[in-house]
């Protein structure tokens, strides 16, 4: 066991763990964050998606010893039930969930896209979201929610300029 210092959603944490513990388990068990989920542990479904230094990663594949000082962001860092972030609000507005298990991962994957490509085409959204699986068939609403969030962000940016 070694002590690792992690920066998660802007806060510093120190955890004592075996070096090969995947980040997913650290987030869920040591830090008690519910967003990232165990879906496969194999990097095939994206339920565990979080952001590390702004890039989307499958946290089930990241050993805690490899994170270092890079900034980790999870869905908890985007907003809360009382103050949802733009993407979270868009998913609520579109009621883009059935069982909802995949959604936190979807939101983080979409966050990575919108932070890099603020005005994505529909084709870009589809391709970017492809690593994330949804078993309930909520895909149409998820795409609409990402589109809605992109439009909201574009309006905010235009408002800020004008």
């Amino acid at each position, binding site marked *: *066991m070694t002590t690792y210092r992690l920066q998660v959603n802007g806060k510093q944490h120190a955890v004592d*763990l*075996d070096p*090969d*513990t*995947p980040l997913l*388990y650290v987030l*869920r*068990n040591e830090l*008690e*964050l*519910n*967003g990232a*989920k*165990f*879906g*496969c*542990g*194999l990097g*095939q*479904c994206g*339920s565990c998606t979080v952001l590390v230094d702004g890039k989307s990663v499958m946290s089930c594949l990241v050993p805690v010893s490899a994170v270092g000082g890079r900034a980790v962001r*999870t*869905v*908890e860092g*985007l*907003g*809360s*039930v009382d103050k*949802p972030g733009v993407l*979270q609000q868009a*998913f*609520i507005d579109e*009621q883009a*969930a*059935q*069982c*909802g*298990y*995949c*959604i*936190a991962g979807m*939101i983080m994957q979409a966050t990575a896209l919108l932070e890099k490509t603020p005005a994505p085409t529909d084709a870009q*959204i*589809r*391709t970017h*979201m*492809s690593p*994330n*699986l*949804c*078993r*309930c*068939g*909520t*895909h*149409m*609403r998820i*795409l609409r929610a990402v589109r809605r969030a992109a439009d909201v962000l574009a309006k905010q940016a235009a408002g800020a300029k004008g």
Partner: protein
Amino acid sequence: MSAAPPCDEGRRRFLAAGGALTLSFAMPAWSAPGELPKSLDKTPWLDAWIRIEANERITIFTGKVELGQGIKTALLQVAADELRVAPGRLHLVTADTERTPDEGLTAGSNSMKDSGTALRHAAGQVRVRLSELAAARLSIPAANLTLKDGAFIAADGRRVSFGQLVTGQELHVRATPDAPPPAPGPKTAIGKSVPRVDIPPKLTGGRAYIQDLRLPQMVHARVVRPPSQAARLIAVDAAAVLRMPGVLKVVRDGRFLAVIADGEYRAVKAATALARATRWDVAAPLPTYPDIATLVRAQPAQPYPILERGVPGAQGQTLRATYTRPFQLHGSIGPSCAVAQLVDGRYTVWTHSQGVFPLRGALAELLGVKDDTIRCIHLEGAGCYGHNGADDVAADAALLARALPGRPVRVQWMREEEHAWEPLGAAMVVDVAATLDGNGRIADWQYAVLTPSHNQRPGKAGNLLAATHLAKPFAPPVPKPSPQPEGSGDRNAIPYYAIPNARVTHHFQPRMFLRTSALRGLGAYCNVFAIESFMDELARAANADPVAFRLRHLTDPRAIEVVRLAAAKFGWNSYKRPAGTTRRGRGFAFARYKNLLAYCALAVEVEVALETGLVRIVRAEAALDCGEIVNPDGVRNQIEGGIVQSTSWTLLEKVRYDAGQMLTLDWGSYPILRFNQVPNSVGVHLIDRPGQPFLGTGEAAQGPAAAAIANAVFDACGLRMRELPLDRQRMRRA
């Protein structure tokens, strides 16, 4: 015109009478006069369903559970509407063997029909009772009181609230069979797209799932499973595993082998090490066959005739076809999970099982204890779509809680475990033949469906996976088919069309070398695929438009209306294949789920690329009639989801195995639909029927989607695909 009686016993008697089965179910209520609606009949006390406290807190109790279908919100809407309060005022408690009514399983699209109807009835009677109490308190006739926001108000302004009226046992009265009068004033909730109450916490990291449960002193366990069901455990050398950091115990009982550790990933690693330290002998290889039809036909079957109408042997043009469906997975995105704890001889099991009461019975038998020493509490899991690993993992957790009393034991199935061991969607073979008369109408219909059990739910301990691995194993009970119209493998095997002579037989296979059980729709997915594909084949032989051909054979006006609506929204009659693009085609399908519940018609346009084998829905337009709509957006969500999920089943999914083991163990080996293959657009058009019974929607779209796709593929490229799935390899070779 006759209404079918509500209970299974009555239906069996009705069918056995040998008369023609008339398909008219236009009844205003789900219960016969003089009988309480289902669920209330088992739990008639009003305060078992609704409790009101002095602090105005209103709690609703249901024996149903949230599976992601939005039932929590819909039930709150039903109760809120009867009580004329805003839905946000109510709290809902879902299935818990210690707190809620026993409503069996949340399955079969029956939740609105059973729990919704019961709650509506109970809440209505609670409202009436409260109005009588208010009238007495205020000395004003009940009819002169206005009901608003949980209080009764007199014309002179005096008011008394629900919480003030219920100080003791006022609601501990039995429900009576007569339906309560409709609630006064405008609806507060039913018919509105109330946002789902469970969504916001799920998006913001709130505690929502069984996987999020954390209890003090909780430990983590993983099970080491045999390579196949027939394998024997020869030897385990647990010594090295016991020395691994954090390992608390290795548990072995016969072939049931597990390790418990103080940290989750430590349990994962310990289980991997334990698996390597275990030797198995695969006693009997799994039988392999060249294709599904051969596999299914090779299993012994018992014939159950479920329809015998008219006289066979009509003259005309006869067509024959065979349709098949492989084994398929529930494939829950979150593998199954449970937590169990044994304290002072009492078990608490937190589970996402669809039926906590039946599960409790099975666990009691497994553990050799009385039912009332076990409490099963439902917490949401990922979408289960039927009988997945949820009950099995609860059994794992209970056994391990017994091995480590006092500590909550959490068992999380791994992805490979869920893929390999969940009860499968059953393989099916359909043989159908029909004869067209000189007027292009179906004169004769012969249909046979061969399939193993679609229901091996606990029930009995022998239905729990771990129970079959113990040193003193429980044998799985021999399954039996469920009678029509619920049916199992024969669900929706009887066509909803007016056909004068028809024979339908269910060839039930009590034994299959792979465990099969309920997957969303049960037999309806393949039966509707077969019937609706064959209707298209018949339509073409009769030189008729596929929609017109169906209308020719439908008598139920509600069915006719959904068919017309879907065709209109799609632009069926004005459809033109676009030039210069991929092969495009249109396809249509209709079904009424179980011939009793929701009506669904679907028109799709697909594009087909035979060189790559890719098939994709370009656009889909569905029409749906599910009786009185409680939450329109919730219904749309379910139908969209059903169409997209069925697209995945229909275009991609089949379980594979070889002599030694299952081969489809993860998403790489069992691909499901990804974003790049979803339709461009899916439209759902609802027909609301206020006053009509709730019909449920969770399973209405699956069968029609499969057939609509296959019919559209034929229209696009002239290939009639009768074997599911229409995967890329099959399309390339076609």
